[in-house]
């Protein structure tokens, strides 16, 4: 009974007031500012300055992942929907594919369109991807190809959150409930 009530209570509590605490993990002193050099879903080479000015969520995955990645992105879609309308224009989700062999810019654009206008697909060469994954201590790896050429890609599942200046601020995990994500995003967008 209590298990059921707690998320509801939390949502009610978080709905109105400015929360004095972070609910997800504070990584401000641990992780460096956003720095990347990748290809976006329009085939353009981009660097981090393309993304400063908005709160940024950074997530690593691949499109041939029908369960984990869409579920994580769907959580972000749900969290963004709980923000005020103007705030939804000040936030973006960078979906970085660590599977450049299959994830062309066109495929990335098709994929991110499912989740909302704030979602942007990016990928790059192994060197470019490794520069970014090493920077945030993220891992990824490829499984064996089956007889149809399909393979799995394992990847870190955390969401890195940067403020408008590109400073690393939060890490959101699968275990963080959506109300916690919403509360922290609102607080971050207010105070940077």
């Amino acid at each position, binding site marked *: 009974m209590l298990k059921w009530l707690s998320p509801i209570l939390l949502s009610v509590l978080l709905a109105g007031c400015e929360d004095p605490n972070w609910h997800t993990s504070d990584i401000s002193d641990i992780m460096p500012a956003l720095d990347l050099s990748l290809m976006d879903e329009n085939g353009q080479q981009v660097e981090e300055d393309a993304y400063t000015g908005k709160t940024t969520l950074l997530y690593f995955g691949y499109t041939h992942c029908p369960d*984990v990645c869409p579920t994580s992105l769907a959580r972000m879609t749900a969290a963004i929907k709980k923000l005020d309308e103007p705030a939804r224009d000040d936030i973006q989700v960078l979906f970085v594919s660590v599977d450049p062999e299959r994830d062309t810019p066109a495929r990335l654009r098709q994929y991110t369109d499912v989740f909302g206008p704030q979602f942007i697909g990016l990928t790059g060469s192994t060197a470019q991807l490794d520069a970014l994954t090493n920077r945030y201590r993220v891992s990824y790896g490829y499984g064996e190809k089956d007889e149809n050429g399909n393979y799995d890609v394992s990847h870190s599942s955390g969401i890195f959150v940067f403020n408008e200046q590109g400073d690393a601020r939060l890490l959101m995990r699968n275990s963080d409930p959506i109300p916690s994500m919403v509360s922290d995003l609102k607080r971050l967008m207010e105070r940077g």
Partner: protein
Amino acid sequence: MANKLRTRALTHARGKWACGLLALLLTGGMAHAQELSLQDARLSLLPGDMPGAGYFSLQNDSAEDVTLVGAQTDAFKNTEIHMSMEKDGMASMQAVPAIDIAAGKSFEFAPKGYHLMFMNRVAPLEVGDDVEVVLLFADGQQLPATFEVVSPATMH
């Protein structure tokens, strides 16, 4: 006394009728094979040739344990049972050859856990469509089911 008994019998019969009708109405959107049933079957559809995910609740109301070994649909070339895992912050996935479901138990295929992985789509599909999928069991049983096509953005 006889009248009272007759009235009771009539009310009981009407009650049975109502239950029967209700059961008939409720079974829309589900599937039965002997005493195996599937509820809440959804196909999370990604665009283009990207794979889809199948989620459902499988109830084994029979007296025997059953083993789910796969699934098949005309809408995709290959369907497999997969399981998503997360260990130390790393997400991964693996194919699962078989799942035992004990007599009287149910089994959930849900986001971030077990799911059907539908690969190489051959038929056009849209959110809101119904897709026929047959679940295959080790003893040769087949459970046909109707999956509702949903947007991945709603699966969280």
